[in-house]
């Protein structure tokens, strides 16, 4: 087979390689989703088989009884709603000021934004925790929502996006008597909608999957977000059911993990293009 041929159609070896990798990438999630419907002892007795006649919801019913996963979902939803809304509204608004106006201190503030982008997030964990203690916010929604409510990365990215909006568009709106906020809301926002969509999915993904800060700042059962609930799952199950055996725990663990996976998987499949754009843009974050 000549090389030019290979360029037009990948060889069978390439397909084999990609297929194997595909299987490896999808296996853990697929296995968990399927195994959660197996009787608990079957999961550990024969982890590689799936017998449709033994299909069962037992792991799910047991899990919903033993694990405060509903509370976890609720807490995550509250954080998503408020923190997400804050990021989606305030970040583009501030970015608009950075991209299209001259003001005193602009470069200083933007420089600070760039520096925080380069810092590892764990650096701030200790002082933030102390700050929460001082404010009396440990184990509250405020602690989960406010720090990072206006993500520095979102500002950085939205500034790039808004810079590309032509100034003539803004000036035309001014001539028509538009106020400055109206220019943002009626001219800028509609134009940058694709960028906003990318920011939206990235924000949802980050907040939904966030774990380090929530586990440090709000780990009580009442305040635990979904990810925090999940992380303490194994201990919770054995704690609630003295003498719970490994099979039961495993079954419930897989059911809970599936429940946590599914919303994001569905969202991803529906909005994959925006997801990939968002992730790509997000990679600048570092």
């Amino acid at each position, binding site marked *: 087979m000549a090389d030019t041929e290979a360029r037009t159609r990948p060889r069978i070896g390439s397909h084999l*390689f990609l297929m194997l990798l595909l299987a490896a990438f999808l296996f*853990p999630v697929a296995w968990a989703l399927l195994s959660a419907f197996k009787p608990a002892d079957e999961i550990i007795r024969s982890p*590689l088989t799936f017998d449709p006649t033994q299909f069962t919801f037992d792991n799910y019913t047991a899990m919903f009884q033993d694990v405060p996963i509903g509370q976890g979902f609720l807490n995550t939803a509250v954080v998503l709603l408020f923190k997400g809304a804050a990021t989606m509204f305030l970040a583009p608004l501030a970015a608009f000021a950075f991209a299209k106006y001259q003001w005193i201190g602009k470069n200083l503030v933007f420089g600070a934004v760039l520096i925080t982008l380069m810092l590892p997030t764990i650096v701030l964990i200790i002082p933030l925790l102390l700050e929460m203690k001082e404010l009396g916010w440990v184990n509250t929604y405020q602690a989960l929502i406010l720090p990072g409510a206006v993500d520095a990365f979102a500002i950085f990215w939205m500034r790039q996006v808004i810079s590309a909006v032509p100034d003539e568009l803004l000036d035309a709106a001014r001539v028509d008597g538009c106020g400055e906020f109206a220019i943002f809301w009626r001219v800028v926002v509609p134009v940058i909608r694709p960028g906003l969509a990318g920011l939206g999915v990235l924000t949802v993904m980050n907040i939904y999957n966030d774990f380090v800060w929530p586990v440090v700042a709000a780990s009580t059962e009442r305040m635990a977000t979904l990810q925090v609930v999940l992380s303490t799952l194994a201990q919770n199950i054995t704690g609630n059911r003295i003498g719970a055996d490994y099979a039961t725990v495993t079954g419930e663990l897989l059911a809970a993990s*599936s429940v946590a996976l599914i919303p994001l998987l569905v969202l*991803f499949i529906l909005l994959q293009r925006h997801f990939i754009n968002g992730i*790509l843009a997000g990679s600048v974050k570092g």
Partner: protein
Amino acid sequence: MTAAVATAPATRRAPRAGRGPRMRRRLAPYVFVLPFVAVFVAFSVYPLFFTARLSFTDWRGTGAATWVGWDNYTYLLTNPAFWSSLGNSAVLWLLIVPVQMVLGVLVAVLLNNAKLRLRGLYRVAFIVPFVTPLVAVAQIWVVLFDQRYGAVNAFLGLFGLPDTGWLTTSAWAKPTLALLFLWKTTGFIVIILLSGLQSINASIYEAADLDGASKTRQLWSITVPLLRRTLGFAVVLQTLAVFQMFAEPFVVTQGGPYNSTTTAGYYLYNHITRADLGTGAANSFLLVVLVMALSLLFVRLLRAKD
């Protein structure tokens, strides 16, 4: 003038209409950035300065803090546990980053071919792990790699291989954790490399084809050199991520067995749980310096080849 005085609302409105738009245009940016700046100063700038001060004290979260100078730093730098946490992260880096870059380039090059069948499917499937919540996946990992009941040992058993304690032996815990990290983030690296590949001019390959250069040769002599900037970017990103790695050992191994998976990030967390906040703050800064130095080094190395 008299009319303006007579109707108070009109007076207030009149000057606004006169110099209003320009004035408002000058004031608007301050109003727009205010909410962000408030949150930013309160929850990023202030804590950062606070950490800096904290790292020179022996504060344990309550009572008075005593200024201890560089003690926390010297304590860490002379503490074998600190160095072993860095060592663990370095080993994880070696297990992860080179493998990931090779795999990433191979997959990205294959996916960059517009004629590839199922291209869309591959692209979506490879990014699925990156989107899934880490904690959920880490729990699945614990079950999959269980020594007695896990699917991995069951599968290997089909080939007559003995059961391995993937998460319970110091020798295997790191590779198993590295595999989780690889699985979770390689799709993301593929996407980054794909975006880099798309900026390479296709005519270079056509010329190479005419010159009779083999595919492997083209990969080494064209793709990799031209992808250097993107690769460098990816390496820096993953270096940051590996040295900060915390959630993976937290959920999967709790730093064990025998501290073999106590990464730099996890070690830092240990100070918090022991309320040893001064040491923790000093550790944060040492980690920042290390991570920044490593990032600069990679950027330098990749530039030096120009």
